[in-house]
Protein backbone atom coordinates (compact mmCIF):
# COMPACT_ATOMS: atom_id res chain seq x y z
CA UNK A 1 0.00 0.00 0.00
CA UNK A 2 3.03 2.25 -0.27
CA UNK A 3 2.80 5.62 -1.96
CA UNK A 4 5.18 6.69 -4.69
CA UNK A 5 6.01 10.19 -5.91
CA UNK A 6 4.80 11.28 -9.34
CA UNK A 7 4.51 14.67 -11.02
CA UNK A 8 1.39 15.27 -13.08
CA UNK A 9 1.32 18.20 -15.49
CA UNK A 10 -2.26 19.41 -15.47
CA UNK A 11 -3.38 22.42 -17.52
CA UNK A 12 0.27 23.38 -17.84
CA UNK A 13 0.99 23.32 -14.10
CA UNK A 14 3.08 20.64 -12.36
CA UNK A 15 1.49 18.80 -9.42
CA UNK A 16 4.01 16.82 -7.36
CA UNK A 17 1.97 14.18 -5.52
CA UNK A 18 2.50 10.84 -3.79
CA UNK A 19 0.02 8.12 -4.63
CA UNK A 20 -0.28 4.36 -4.64
CA UNK A 21 0.34 2.57 -7.92
CA UNK A 22 -3.29 1.50 -7.98
CA UNK A 23 -4.63 5.05 -7.91
CA UNK A 24 -6.35 5.99 -11.15
CA UNK A 25 -5.62 9.26 -12.90
CA UNK A 26 -9.21 10.32 -12.19
CA UNK A 27 -8.86 9.82 -8.43
CA UNK A 28 -5.43 11.46 -8.37
CA UNK A 29 -6.79 14.54 -10.17
CA UNK A 30 -9.68 14.87 -7.73
CA UNK A 31 -8.12 13.85 -4.43
CA UNK A 32 -4.45 14.77 -4.79
CA UNK A 33 -4.43 17.61 -7.31
CA UNK A 34 -7.70 18.92 -5.82
CA UNK A 35 -9.17 19.37 -9.28
CA UNK A 36 -12.71 18.14 -8.72
CA UNK A 37 -14.07 19.32 -12.07
CA UNK A 38 -13.38 15.83 -13.46
CA UNK A 39 -16.34 13.68 -12.42
CA UNK A 40 -16.41 9.97 -11.74
CA UNK A 41 -19.50 8.03 -12.69
CA UNK A 42 -19.12 4.32 -13.33
CA UNK A 43 -15.39 3.98 -12.57
CA UNK A 44 -15.01 1.25 -15.17
CA UNK A 45 -14.86 3.04 -18.49
CA UNK A 46 -18.49 2.96 -19.57
CA UNK A 47 -19.94 6.41 -18.83
CA UNK A 48 -17.19 8.80 -19.93
CA UNK A 49 -17.86 11.34 -17.15
CA UNK A 50 -14.13 11.32 -16.27
CA UNK A 51 -12.91 12.06 -19.82
CA UNK A 52 -9.79 14.25 -19.84
CA UNK A 53 -7.27 15.05 -22.57
CA UNK A 54 -3.88 13.32 -22.33
CA UNK A 55 -1.30 14.38 -24.92
CA UNK A 56 -4.09 15.57 -27.21
CA UNK A 57 -6.23 12.43 -26.97
CA UNK A 58 -9.55 12.17 -25.15
CA UNK A 59 -9.21 9.34 -22.61
CA UNK A 60 -11.12 7.82 -19.71
CA UNK A 61 -9.21 8.99 -16.63
CA UNK A 62 -10.62 6.03 -14.65
CA UNK A 63 -8.87 3.61 -17.04
CA UNK A 64 -5.38 5.00 -16.57
CA UNK A 65 -3.23 4.90 -13.49
CA UNK A 66 -1.81 8.21 -12.28
CA UNK A 67 1.73 6.90 -12.55
CA UNK A 68 1.18 6.17 -16.26
CA UNK A 69 0.53 9.88 -16.85
CA UNK A 70 3.99 10.98 -15.69
CA UNK A 71 5.45 13.29 -18.33
CA UNK A 72 2.17 13.67 -20.21
CA UNK A 73 0.28 16.91 -20.85
CA UNK A 74 -3.06 16.52 -19.09
CA UNK A 75 -5.96 18.88 -19.70
CA UNK A 76 -9.06 18.95 -17.51
CA UNK A 77 -12.23 21.03 -17.54
CA UNK A 78 -10.56 23.53 -15.18
CA UNK A 79 -8.21 24.46 -18.02
CA UNK A 80 -10.87 25.37 -20.57
CA UNK A 81 -11.85 28.87 -19.46
CA UNK A 82 -9.46 31.81 -19.72
CA UNK A 83 -9.88 33.72 -16.47
CA UNK A 84 -13.53 34.72 -16.27
CA UNK A 85 -14.11 34.05 -19.95
CA UNK A 86 -15.61 30.66 -20.68
CA UNK A 87 -14.29 28.48 -23.46
CA UNK A 88 -16.58 28.96 -26.50
CA UNK A 89 -17.83 25.38 -26.14
CA UNK A 90 -18.74 26.00 -22.48
CA UNK A 91 -20.66 29.11 -23.61
CA UNK A 92 -22.30 27.11 -26.36
CA UNK A 93 -23.47 24.52 -23.80
CA UNK A 94 -25.18 27.33 -21.86
CA UNK A 95 -26.65 28.90 -25.01
CA UNK A 96 -28.13 25.60 -26.18
CA UNK A 97 -29.24 24.33 -22.78
CA UNK A 98 -26.90 21.36 -23.21
CA UNK A 99 -26.75 20.56 -19.52
CA UNK A 100 -29.37 19.80 -16.95
CA UNK A 101 -27.86 18.21 -13.83
CA UNK A 102 -24.35 18.88 -15.19
CA UNK A 103 -22.75 15.69 -13.97
CA UNK A 104 -21.69 14.49 -17.42
CA UNK A 105 -20.78 17.96 -18.69
CA UNK A 106 -17.02 18.04 -17.95
CA UNK A 107 -16.61 14.72 -19.74
CA UNK A 108 -18.60 15.82 -22.77
CA UNK A 109 -16.68 19.10 -22.96
CA UNK A 110 -13.28 17.42 -22.90
CA UNK A 111 -14.40 14.74 -25.36
CA UNK A 112 -15.71 17.28 -27.87
CA UNK A 113 -12.79 19.70 -27.44
CA UNK A 114 -10.24 16.94 -28.06
CA UNK A 115 -12.09 15.47 -31.04
CA UNK A 116 -12.73 18.78 -32.77
CA UNK A 117 -9.35 20.39 -32.10
CA UNK A 118 -7.81 17.46 -33.89
CA UNK A 119 -10.38 17.17 -36.66
CA UNK A 120 -12.21 20.50 -37.10
CA UNK A 121 -13.74 19.32 -40.41
CA UNK A 122 -15.47 16.35 -38.75
CA UNK A 123 -18.69 15.34 -40.51
CA UNK A 124 -22.01 15.41 -38.72
CA UNK A 125 -22.17 11.61 -38.68
CA UNK A 126 -18.69 11.43 -37.15
CA UNK A 127 -19.68 13.98 -34.53
CA UNK A 128 -22.69 11.89 -33.52
CA UNK A 129 -20.44 8.84 -33.32
CA UNK A 130 -17.95 10.70 -31.12
CA UNK A 131 -20.65 11.98 -28.76
CA UNK A 132 -22.05 8.45 -28.41
CA UNK A 133 -18.90 7.71 -26.33
CA UNK A 134 -20.35 9.34 -23.20
CA UNK A 135 -23.57 8.91 -21.25
CA UNK A 136 -25.97 11.67 -20.19
CA UNK A 137 -28.62 10.31 -17.84
CA UNK A 138 -30.74 13.45 -18.25
CA UNK A 139 -30.80 12.29 -21.90
CA UNK A 140 -29.92 15.74 -23.14
CA UNK A 141 -28.15 14.40 -26.20
CA UNK A 142 -30.01 16.51 -28.75
CA UNK A 143 -29.01 19.76 -27.09
CA UNK A 144 -25.45 18.54 -26.48
CA UNK A 145 -25.22 17.79 -30.20
CA UNK A 146 -26.62 21.25 -31.03
CA UNK A 147 -24.09 22.95 -28.74
CA UNK A 148 -21.13 21.04 -30.13
CA UNK A 149 -22.30 21.48 -33.71
CA UNK A 150 -22.62 25.25 -33.24
CA UNK A 151 -19.09 25.46 -31.85
CA UNK A 152 -17.80 23.07 -34.54
CA UNK A 153 -19.14 25.44 -37.22
CA UNK A 154 -16.98 28.25 -35.85
CA UNK A 155 -14.01 25.86 -35.48
CA UNK A 156 -14.16 24.68 -39.08
CA UNK A 157 -14.04 28.31 -40.21
CA UNK A 158 -11.09 29.26 -37.97
CA UNK A 159 -7.51 27.91 -38.06
CA UNK A 160 -6.84 25.17 -35.49
CA UNK A 161 -5.44 26.54 -32.21
CA UNK A 162 -2.09 25.40 -30.91
CA UNK A 163 -2.52 22.67 -28.27
CA UNK A 164 -2.12 24.00 -24.71
Amino acid at each position, binding site marked *: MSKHPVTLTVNGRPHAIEVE*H*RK*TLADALREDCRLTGTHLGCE*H*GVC*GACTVIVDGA*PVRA*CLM*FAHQAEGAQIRTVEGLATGETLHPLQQSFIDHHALQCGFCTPGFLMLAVA*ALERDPEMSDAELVEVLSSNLCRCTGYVNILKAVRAWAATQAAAPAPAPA
Partner: protein
Amino acid sequence: MKPAPFTLHRPRSVAEAAALLAATAEEGGLILAGGQTLTPMMALRVAFPSDLIDITAIPGLDRIEEAGGALRIGAAARHAAFRRPVTANPLGALLADVCRHIAHLPIRERGTFCGSLCHADPASEWCLVAATLDATLHLEGPEGPREVAAADWFEGPMTTARAPEEMLTAVTLPLLPSAARHGFYEFNRRAGDFALGMALAVVSLEDGLMKDVRLGLGAVEDRPRRLSEAEAMLEGRAPSESLFAEVAEAVLPALDPMGDPATPADYRRDLAGTAIRRALAAALTAQSPAEIPA
Protein backbone atom coordinates in the same frame (compact mmCIF):
# COMPACT_ATOMS: atom_id res chain seq x y z
CA MET B 1 -14.73 0.05 -7.70
CA LYS B 2 -11.06 0.61 -6.86
CA PRO B 3 -8.41 -1.86 -8.01
CA ALA B 4 -6.71 -3.99 -5.37
CA PRO B 5 -3.11 -2.98 -4.57
CA PHE B 6 -0.40 -4.02 -7.01
CA THR B 7 3.12 -2.99 -7.98
CA LEU B 8 3.48 -1.06 -11.25
CA HIS B 9 6.57 -1.54 -13.40
CA ARG B 10 7.43 0.64 -16.38
CA PRO B 11 10.23 -1.19 -18.25
CA ARG B 12 12.10 0.50 -21.10
CA SER B 13 12.75 -2.59 -23.23
CA VAL B 14 11.00 -5.78 -24.32
CA ALA B 15 13.76 -7.86 -22.70
CA GLU B 16 13.18 -6.10 -19.38
CA ALA B 17 9.41 -6.50 -19.67
CA ALA B 18 9.71 -10.20 -20.52
CA ALA B 19 12.06 -10.74 -17.57
CA LEU B 20 9.66 -8.95 -15.18
CA LEU B 21 6.76 -11.04 -16.46
CA ALA B 22 8.73 -14.27 -16.10
CA ALA B 23 9.62 -13.29 -12.51
CA THR B 24 6.09 -12.28 -11.46
CA ALA B 25 3.71 -14.42 -13.57
CA GLU B 26 3.42 -17.13 -10.94
CA GLU B 27 2.33 -14.57 -8.32
CA GLY B 28 -0.17 -13.09 -10.78
CA GLY B 29 1.90 -10.53 -12.70
CA LEU B 30 0.32 -9.30 -15.93
CA ILE B 31 1.29 -7.14 -18.89
CA LEU B 32 -0.55 -3.81 -19.02
CA ALA B 33 -0.86 -2.36 -22.53
CA GLY B 34 -3.78 -0.01 -23.23
CA GLY B 35 -5.62 -1.09 -20.09
CA GLN B 36 -9.10 -0.58 -21.55
CA THR B 37 -10.17 -4.10 -20.58
CA LEU B 38 -7.79 -5.06 -17.80
CA THR B 39 -8.33 -1.86 -15.77
CA PRO B 40 -12.14 -2.19 -15.63
CA MET B 41 -11.70 -5.87 -14.70
CA MET B 42 -9.45 -4.72 -11.86
CA ALA B 43 -11.93 -2.03 -10.79
CA LEU B 44 -14.60 -4.74 -10.64
CA ARG B 45 -12.13 -6.99 -8.77
CA VAL B 46 -12.49 -9.67 -11.41
CA ALA B 47 -8.73 -9.32 -11.94
CA PHE B 48 -6.28 -8.62 -9.11
CA PRO B 49 -2.73 -8.91 -10.46
CA SER B 50 0.19 -8.72 -8.01
CA ASP B 51 2.24 -6.78 -10.55
CA LEU B 52 1.45 -4.80 -13.66
CA ILE B 53 4.13 -4.45 -16.30
CA ASP B 54 3.22 -1.35 -18.30
CA ILE B 55 4.72 -1.76 -21.78
CA THR B 56 3.60 1.60 -23.18
CA ALA B 57 6.83 3.35 -22.18
CA ILE B 58 8.97 0.98 -24.29
CA PRO B 59 10.35 3.05 -27.20
CA GLY B 60 9.19 1.84 -30.61
CA LEU B 61 6.86 -0.88 -29.35
CA ASP B 62 3.90 0.96 -30.90
CA ARG B 63 5.44 0.71 -34.37
CA ILE B 64 3.41 -0.59 -37.31
CA GLU B 65 5.57 -1.48 -40.29
CA GLU B 66 5.45 -3.29 -43.59
CA ALA B 67 8.16 -5.89 -44.14
CA GLY B 68 8.50 -9.12 -46.09
CA GLY B 69 4.96 -9.13 -47.47
CA ALA B 70 3.38 -8.60 -44.06
CA LEU B 71 2.30 -5.85 -41.72
CA ARG B 72 3.99 -6.08 -38.33
CA ILE B 73 2.02 -4.56 -35.46
CA GLY B 74 3.97 -3.85 -32.26
CA ALA B 75 2.51 -4.78 -28.88
CA ALA B 76 1.80 -1.17 -27.89
CA ALA B 77 0.16 -0.04 -31.18
CA ARG B 78 -3.19 1.47 -30.33
CA HIS B 79 -6.53 0.97 -32.09
CA ALA B 80 -6.57 4.64 -33.11
CA ALA B 81 -3.39 4.13 -35.15
CA PHE B 82 -5.47 2.25 -37.72
CA ARG B 83 -8.05 5.02 -38.12
CA ARG B 84 -6.46 6.02 -41.44
CA PRO B 85 -4.99 3.28 -43.69
CA VAL B 86 -1.53 2.33 -42.39
CA THR B 87 -0.56 0.85 -45.77
CA ALA B 88 -1.53 1.39 -49.42
CA ASN B 89 -2.15 -2.37 -49.62
CA PRO B 90 -5.91 -3.18 -49.37
CA LEU B 91 -5.15 -4.36 -45.82
CA GLY B 92 -4.86 -0.70 -44.74
CA ALA B 93 -8.42 0.10 -45.83
CA LEU B 94 -9.70 -3.10 -44.20
CA LEU B 95 -8.13 -2.25 -40.84
CA ALA B 96 -9.41 1.36 -41.00
CA ASP B 97 -12.92 0.14 -41.75
CA VAL B 98 -12.94 -2.40 -38.91
CA CYS B 99 -11.31 0.05 -36.46
CA ARG B 100 -14.36 2.35 -36.50
CA HIS B 101 -16.45 -0.44 -34.98
CA ILE B 102 -14.28 -0.90 -31.88
CA ALA B 103 -15.88 0.56 -28.74
CA HIS B 104 -15.78 4.39 -28.59
CA LEU B 105 -13.21 7.04 -29.51
CA PRO B 106 -11.58 7.42 -26.04
CA ILE B 107 -11.23 3.63 -25.77
CA ARG B 108 -9.66 3.45 -29.24
CA GLU B 109 -7.13 6.10 -28.18
CA ARG B 110 -5.76 3.82 -25.45
CA GLY B 111 -6.59 0.19 -26.26
CA THR B 112 -4.13 -1.87 -28.29
CA PHE B 113 -4.39 -4.34 -31.17
CA CYS B 114 -2.20 -6.93 -29.45
CA GLY B 115 -3.97 -6.46 -26.12
CA SER B 116 -7.25 -7.39 -27.79
CA LEU B 117 -5.67 -10.56 -29.10
CA CYS B 118 -4.38 -11.48 -25.64
CA HIS B 119 -7.75 -10.82 -24.04
CA ALA B 120 -9.46 -12.92 -26.75
CA ASP B 121 -13.02 -11.78 -26.23
CA PRO B 122 -15.09 -13.74 -28.78
CA ALA B 123 -16.69 -10.40 -29.79
CA SER B 124 -13.36 -8.67 -30.51
CA GLU B 125 -13.07 -7.18 -34.00
CA TRP B 126 -9.27 -7.53 -34.11
CA CYS B 127 -9.51 -11.19 -33.09
CA LEU B 128 -11.80 -11.78 -36.08
CA VAL B 129 -9.33 -9.97 -38.35
CA ALA B 130 -6.45 -12.09 -37.00
CA ALA B 131 -8.36 -15.35 -37.51
CA THR B 132 -9.68 -14.45 -40.98
CA LEU B 133 -6.31 -13.25 -42.31
CA ASP B 134 -4.24 -16.01 -40.64
CA ALA B 135 -2.15 -13.71 -38.47
CA THR B 136 1.06 -14.87 -36.81
CA LEU B 137 1.54 -14.05 -33.12
CA HIS B 138 5.07 -13.45 -31.84
CA LEU B 139 5.73 -14.35 -28.21
CA GLU B 140 8.71 -13.83 -25.92
CA GLY B 141 9.11 -16.11 -22.93
CA PRO B 142 11.67 -17.70 -20.61
CA GLU B 143 12.35 -20.40 -23.25
CA GLY B 144 12.98 -17.75 -25.92
CA PRO B 145 10.78 -16.48 -28.73
CA ARG B 146 8.08 -18.55 -30.44
CA GLU B 147 5.37 -18.00 -33.02
CA VAL B 148 1.76 -19.15 -32.93
CA ALA B 149 -0.66 -19.17 -35.87
CA ALA B 150 -3.99 -17.44 -35.27
CA ALA B 151 -5.80 -20.73 -35.95
CA ASP B 152 -4.03 -22.20 -32.88
CA TRP B 153 -4.18 -19.07 -30.73
CA PHE B 154 -7.84 -18.90 -29.69
CA GLU B 155 -8.80 -21.68 -27.29
CA GLY B 156 -12.13 -20.30 -26.08
CA PRO B 157 -13.59 -17.18 -24.49
CA MET B 158 -10.73 -15.13 -22.99
CA THR B 159 -8.46 -18.15 -23.38
CA THR B 160 -5.40 -18.32 -25.64
CA ALA B 161 -2.34 -20.48 -26.29
CA ARG B 162 -0.18 -17.94 -24.41
CA ALA B 163 1.50 -19.23 -21.24
CA PRO B 164 1.26 -16.85 -18.24
CA GLU B 165 4.98 -16.06 -18.40
CA GLU B 166 4.92 -15.29 -22.15
CA MET B 167 4.56 -11.79 -23.57
CA LEU B 168 2.98 -11.08 -26.96
CA THR B 169 5.50 -8.73 -28.60
CA ALA B 170 3.99 -8.33 -32.08
CA VAL B 171 1.43 -9.65 -34.53
CA THR B 172 2.02 -9.96 -38.26
CA LEU B 173 -0.77 -9.86 -40.80
CA PRO B 174 -0.02 -11.01 -44.36
CA LEU B 175 -0.58 -8.30 -46.99
CA LEU B 176 -3.61 -8.95 -49.20
CA PRO B 177 -3.60 -9.50 -52.98
CA SER B 178 -3.53 -6.06 -54.64
CA ALA B 179 -7.05 -6.52 -56.07
CA ALA B 180 -8.53 -7.73 -52.77
CA ARG B 181 -11.68 -6.06 -51.52
CA HIS B 182 -13.23 -6.50 -48.11
CA GLY B 183 -16.59 -6.35 -46.43
CA PHE B 184 -17.22 -6.17 -42.70
CA TYR B 185 -20.55 -6.31 -40.93
CA GLU B 186 -21.32 -6.40 -37.24
CA PHE B 187 -24.51 -6.15 -35.24
CA ASN B 188 -24.83 -4.80 -31.73
CA ARG B 189 -27.74 -3.33 -29.82
CA ARG B 190 -26.16 0.10 -29.24
CA ALA B 191 -23.28 1.88 -30.93
CA GLY B 192 -20.00 0.82 -29.36
CA ASP B 193 -21.43 -2.17 -27.52
CA PHE B 194 -20.03 -5.67 -27.76
CA ALA B 195 -21.01 -7.28 -31.06
CA LEU B 196 -23.55 -10.11 -31.04
CA GLY B 197 -22.47 -11.30 -34.45
CA MET B 198 -19.98 -10.18 -37.09
CA ALA B 199 -18.40 -11.37 -40.31
CA LEU B 200 -15.41 -10.33 -42.38
CA ALA B 201 -15.11 -11.22 -46.07
CA VAL B 202 -12.04 -10.71 -48.26
CA VAL B 203 -12.26 -11.54 -51.95
CA SER B 204 -10.65 -10.72 -55.29
CA LEU B 205 -12.58 -10.67 -58.56
CA GLU B 206 -11.05 -12.10 -61.73
CA ASP B 207 -13.12 -12.08 -64.90
CA GLY B 208 -16.19 -11.69 -62.75
CA LEU B 209 -15.35 -14.73 -60.62
CA MET B 210 -14.40 -14.72 -56.93
CA LYS B 211 -10.96 -15.94 -55.92
CA ASP B 212 -8.75 -15.99 -52.81
CA VAL B 213 -11.93 -15.93 -50.73
CA ARG B 214 -11.60 -15.54 -46.98
CA LEU B 215 -14.66 -15.51 -44.76
CA GLY B 216 -14.47 -15.22 -40.98
CA LEU B 217 -17.18 -15.27 -38.33
CA GLY B 218 -16.90 -13.63 -34.90
CA ALA B 219 -18.99 -13.05 -31.75
CA VAL B 220 -21.20 -16.05 -32.53
CA GLU B 221 -19.12 -19.03 -31.44
CA ASP B 222 -16.74 -19.04 -28.45
CA ARG B 223 -13.87 -17.98 -30.71
CA PRO B 224 -13.50 -16.37 -34.15
CA ARG B 225 -12.67 -18.62 -37.10
CA ARG B 226 -12.53 -18.94 -40.86
CA LEU B 227 -15.48 -20.73 -42.43
CA SER B 228 -13.56 -22.95 -44.84
CA GLU B 229 -16.67 -24.77 -46.09
CA ALA B 230 -18.22 -21.46 -47.11
CA GLU B 231 -15.01 -20.24 -48.68
CA ALA B 232 -14.88 -23.37 -50.86
CA MET B 233 -18.47 -22.81 -52.00
CA LEU B 234 -17.63 -19.24 -53.07
CA GLU B 235 -14.23 -19.79 -54.70
CA GLY B 236 -14.36 -19.55 -58.49
CA ARG B 237 -18.04 -18.62 -58.60
CA ALA B 238 -19.69 -15.40 -59.75
CA PRO B 239 -20.99 -13.32 -56.85
CA SER B 240 -24.73 -13.07 -56.38
CA GLU B 241 -27.08 -12.45 -53.49
CA SER B 242 -28.63 -15.87 -54.05
CA LEU B 243 -25.23 -17.58 -53.79
CA PHE B 244 -24.46 -15.67 -50.58
CA ALA B 245 -27.79 -16.78 -49.11
CA GLU B 246 -27.10 -20.37 -50.17
CA VAL B 247 -23.66 -20.26 -48.52
CA ALA B 248 -25.06 -18.79 -45.31
CA GLU B 249 -27.77 -21.46 -45.15
CA ALA B 250 -25.18 -24.20 -45.70
CA VAL B 251 -22.90 -23.17 -42.82
CA LEU B 252 -25.52 -22.35 -40.17
CA PRO B 253 -26.38 -25.92 -39.04
CA ALA B 254 -22.75 -26.71 -38.21
CA LEU B 255 -22.24 -23.60 -36.05
CA ASP B 256 -21.99 -23.92 -32.28
CA PRO B 257 -23.26 -20.50 -31.12
CA MET B 258 -22.92 -19.12 -27.61
CA GLY B 259 -26.18 -18.39 -25.86
CA ASP B 260 -27.45 -16.37 -22.94
CA PRO B 261 -30.96 -15.40 -21.80
CA ALA B 262 -30.92 -12.15 -23.79
CA THR B 263 -29.41 -13.67 -26.93
CA PRO B 264 -30.20 -17.40 -27.26
CA ALA B 265 -28.00 -19.58 -29.44
CA ASP B 266 -30.64 -19.80 -32.18
CA TYR B 267 -30.78 -16.01 -32.33
CA ARG B 268 -27.03 -15.81 -32.80
CA ARG B 269 -27.16 -18.56 -35.44
CA ASP B 270 -29.73 -16.57 -37.40
CA LEU B 271 -27.64 -13.41 -36.94
CA ALA B 272 -24.58 -15.26 -38.27
CA GLY B 273 -26.42 -15.83 -41.55
CA THR B 274 -27.26 -12.13 -41.83
CA ALA B 275 -23.70 -11.10 -40.98
CA ILE B 276 -22.22 -13.50 -43.56
CA ARG B 277 -24.56 -12.29 -46.34
CA ARG B 278 -24.01 -8.62 -45.55
CA ALA B 279 -20.21 -8.89 -45.22
CA LEU B 280 -20.02 -10.65 -48.60
CA ALA B 281 -22.32 -8.11 -50.22
CA ALA B 282 -20.27 -5.26 -48.74
CA ALA B 283 -17.06 -6.81 -50.09
CA LEU B 284 -18.47 -6.92 -53.58
CA THR B 285 -19.96 -3.44 -53.57
CA ALA B 286 -17.30 -1.54 -51.63
CA GLN B 287 -14.93 -0.78 -54.48
CA SER B 288 -17.08 -1.68 -57.44
CA PRO B 289 -19.86 0.37 -59.00
CA ALA B 290 -21.27 -2.78 -60.59
CA GLU B 291 -24.38 -4.06 -58.88
CA ILE B 292 -24.49 -7.61 -57.63
CA PRO B 293 -27.10 -9.62 -59.55
CA ALA B 294 -30.05 -10.65 -57.39
